[in-house]
C-alpha cells in the first residue's frame, strides 16, 4: 500500500529495514532529514544500531568503514561539501573493497556557497571506485536502496554504492511511496557475508600498502569488479521486479517513448520526470534514455539504444569547467550519432517546459555542440 511520505524519511525507513548496526553521520543540508529520522529510530529502539554523532564527514565515512570492516552493515549519508570532505576516505573504502551503501542528497559544491541541487558534488567522485546510481523519484530511491545492498555485497562486486538523489527536489518532497515490508526487504537483501573482516579468531590485516610491483593489479581487480557489477545489477533488478513487481529497466538504463523515436535525450535523476511530462503532452519523435547507473557506465547499452537514432542530446546539472558537459563527453565517447550537450539547472535553477521545448528543438537540428540552458548572461 502506498503512503505519502517525505523521501528523506522513506530513505531512513528503508535503510532501517535493511538494518545497519552502525550509523555515523554529520549534518549537512539537504541530507539532514535522512539522518535525523535515523537517529529517532535508534532513540526509540525501533532500529538496533549505534548512532555516532561524528565531528566531520571525514570521520563519518571513516567510522562507517571501520564498522563495516567488522562484518556489519554501516551507513552514512551526506551532500556537497560533506562529500568533498569524505573524498579521501571514499577511495579507501572502495580500494579496501568494503561494500558500504550511502545516500547523497546532491547539492552544489561551493563557491558561491549555495544549498540547492546539482551534481557538482557527486561527479568529482566518479573515478574512485564507487558505483553511482541516480534516482528519479522517491519510489526509485527506495527500490534502488534495497537493490544496492545486494549488488554491493555480491562477492563478484564488493564495491561501495552511492545512491544520488537530487537535493530538495527529491530529498524534501512528499510522495506516495510503496514501502515494502521489513521481512520482504530483509529476505531480499539477505545476510551480509564478507570474505574478510576484523575478527580476533581469524586474523587479517585490512589496508596494506602496495608498491609499483603490485599496486596496478589491485586497480585491475577493482575494474573487473566494476565490470562484473553490470551483470549483477541486471540480475538483481530482474529479481527485484519478480519479487516486488516494479520495473527499473535493466537496472543500468531505462527508456521512455524511445520506440520509433528519431531522437533521444539522455539524462539522469529527477529531471527525467520533467522530460516525461513534456513528452506526454506533445512529443512523439523524442524519447528518453535515463541513466540509472552512472558507474559502472552503461557503455554497451547506450551504443545499442542509440543505434538508428538521428541525434541525441545530453542534459546534465554539472559542468566540467574547461571541457563542457562531462556526461555529454562520456556519451560522445561511445555513441555514433551527433550529441548536443546541454548544461543547466545548476544549483536548483528551475528547468522549465519552455527549456525542454528548446532542448528538443536543438536536438532535432542533429548537431554536436554545447549550450547553457536558462543563462542570464548577456
Amino acid at each position, binding site marked *: 500500500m502506498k503512503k505519502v511520505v517525505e523521501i528523506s524519511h522513506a530513505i531512513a525507513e528503508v535503510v532501517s529495514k535493511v538494518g545497519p548496526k552502525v550509523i555515523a553521520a554529520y549534518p549537512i543540508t539537504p541530507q539532514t532529514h535522512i539522518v535525523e529520522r535515523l537517529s529517532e529510530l535508534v532513540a526509540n529502539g525501533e532500529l538496533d544500531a*549505534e548512532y555516532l554523532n561524528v565531528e*566531520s564527514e571525514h570521520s563519518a565515512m*571513516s567510522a562507517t568503514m*571501520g564498522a563495516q570492516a567488522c562484518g556489519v552493515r554501516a551507513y552514512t549519508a551526506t551532500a556537497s561539501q560533506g562529500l568533498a570532505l569524505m573524498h579521501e576516505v571514499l577511495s579507501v573504502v572502495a580500494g579496501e573493497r568494503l561494500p558500504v551503501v550511502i545516500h547523497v542528497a546532491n547539492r552544489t559544491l561551493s563557491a558561491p556557497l549555495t544549498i540547492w541541487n546539482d551534481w557538482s558534488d557527486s561527479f568529482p567522485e566518479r573515478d574512485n571506485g564507487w558505483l553511482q546510481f541516480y534516482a528519479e523519484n522517491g519510489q526509485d530511491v527506495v527500490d534502488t536502496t534495497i537493490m544496492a545492498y545486494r549488488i554491493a555485497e555480491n562477492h563478484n562486486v564488493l564495491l561501495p554504492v552511492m545512491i544520488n538523489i537530487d537535493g530538495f527536489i527529491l530529498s524534501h518532497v512528499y510522495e506516495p511511496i510503496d514501502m515494502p515490508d521489513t521481512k520482504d526487504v530483509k529476505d531480499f537483501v539477505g545476510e551480509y557475508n564478507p570474505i574478510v573482516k576484523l575478527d580476533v579468531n581469524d*586474523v587479517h590485516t585490512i589496508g596494506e600498502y602496495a608498491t609499483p610491483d603490485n599496486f596496478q593489479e589491485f586497480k585491475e581487480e577493482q575494474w573487473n569488479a566494476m565490470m562484473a557489477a553490470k551483470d549483477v545489477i541486471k540480475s538483481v533488478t530482474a529479481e527485484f521486479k519478480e519479487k516486488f513487481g516494479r520495473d527499473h529497466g535493466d537496472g543500468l538504463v531505462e527508456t521512455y517513448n524511445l520506440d520509433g523515436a528519431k531522437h533521444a535525450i539522455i539524462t539522469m535523476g529527477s529531471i527525467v520526470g520533467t522530460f516525461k511530462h513534456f513528452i506526454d503532452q506533445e512529443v512523439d519523435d523524442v524519447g528518453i534514455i535515463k541513466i540509472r547507473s552512472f558507474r559502472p557506465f552503461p557503455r554497451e547499452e547506450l551504443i545499442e539504444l542509440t543505434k538508428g537514432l538521428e541525434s541525441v542530446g545530453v542534459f546534465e546539472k554539472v559542468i566540467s569547467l574547461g571541457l563542457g558537459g562531462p556526461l555529454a563527453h562520456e556519451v560522445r565517447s561511445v555513441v555514433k550519432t551527433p550529441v548536443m550537450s546541454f548544461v543547466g539547472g545548476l544549483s536548483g535553477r528551475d528547468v522549465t517546459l519552455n527549456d525542454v521545448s528548446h532542448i528538443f528543438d536543438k536536438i532535432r537540428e542533429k548537431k554536436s555542440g554545447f549550450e547553457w540552458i536558462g543563462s542570464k548572461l548577456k
Partner: protein
Amino acid sequence: MDRVKIEVMHMNERYEKLLFKPGHTACAGCPIPIIVRTVLNTLGKNTIVAFGTSCLEIISSQYPYNAWGVPAMHSAFENTAAIASGIEAAQKKLGNKVNVVAFAGDGGTFDIGLQALSGMVDRGHNVLYVVYDNESYANTGIQRSSATPFGAWTTTSPVGKKIHGNKTFKKPLALMMAAQGAKYVATASISNLPDFKRKVQRAAEIEGPKFIHVLNPCPTGWKFDSSLTVDVAKLSVETGLWVLFEIDHGKFRITYKPKEFKPVRDYLMLQRRFKHLTDEEINKIQERVKEDWSMYEGLEGVKI
C-alpha cells in the same frame, strides 16, 4: 633432538607469542616495534587494531608482507581515531568484548588527526589510543610537527642564519586529552617498560577513551647512533624533559621522578638535531624543564 632443531622450535614458539612479528621493516634502532609489541603483548590476542598512515604502516604491512598478529586495519592518515570509533561501535553491537587499540604517530595525532581524536574522546568510545611520538613527520623525511621540541632541527624547521630550528615547545596533548575527559591518560617511555606495561594494563581495565603518549626516539630523524635508542629514551626521562605521569579518571600522578635530574645538555648533545643549539638556547630548555616540573608537581594528586 639436535641443538639447531631446539633453537628453531624455540623461535617458532616465540614467533607465535609475539603479536607484532619479527620481519617488519623498521629502521635499525627504531623503537616503534617495542611500543607496539609492549601494548599488544600486554593486552593479548583479544585485540583489534586501527593504525594510521605513518612509519608504522610502512614497516608493518607492505603487501604481501605483514607483521600484525592481531586483526588490524589501516585507512588513512588523520582518521585513526574515527576508524577505531567505528570498530568499537560495531564490536559493541556484535556483543564482542575486545580491546580496540589505535596507533598513530605524532603528526597523525597532534596535528591532522586531532579533530578525529577529540571526537572519539567526546563520544566516549572504549578505545585505547597510543601515540608513538618521534617528534616529527618522520615517514615523509623528518618534517616539523606540533610535537617537535623547541630548538630541534627538522627538514622544515632548518637551522638557518635567521631561524635556529623549531621555534615552539611541544603541544601538551596528554593534558589536553585529560581536560577533555579521557578516562585514563598517561605518558610512557621505552626505557621503563614495567611502568609502560602497568599503564597499558590499567588502561585495559577502564571503560571509555584512553590515551597513552609514548616518546619514540628516532635514530634516523633525531640523528643519533642506532645502538643508543634506549639510552636516549632513558636520558629524556632522567633529564626531566620527558615526564612520566598518569591521569586516572582525572587524578594526576607522577609515576617516576629521577632522584637527581641530569642536565638537559646530556640528552641534547647525543642528538645531531640539537647540535647547533647555543648555550642560551640550552638554558632556555633547562628553564622550561624546571617550569614544567613545577607545574606537574603542582598537579600531583589534583583532579583535572
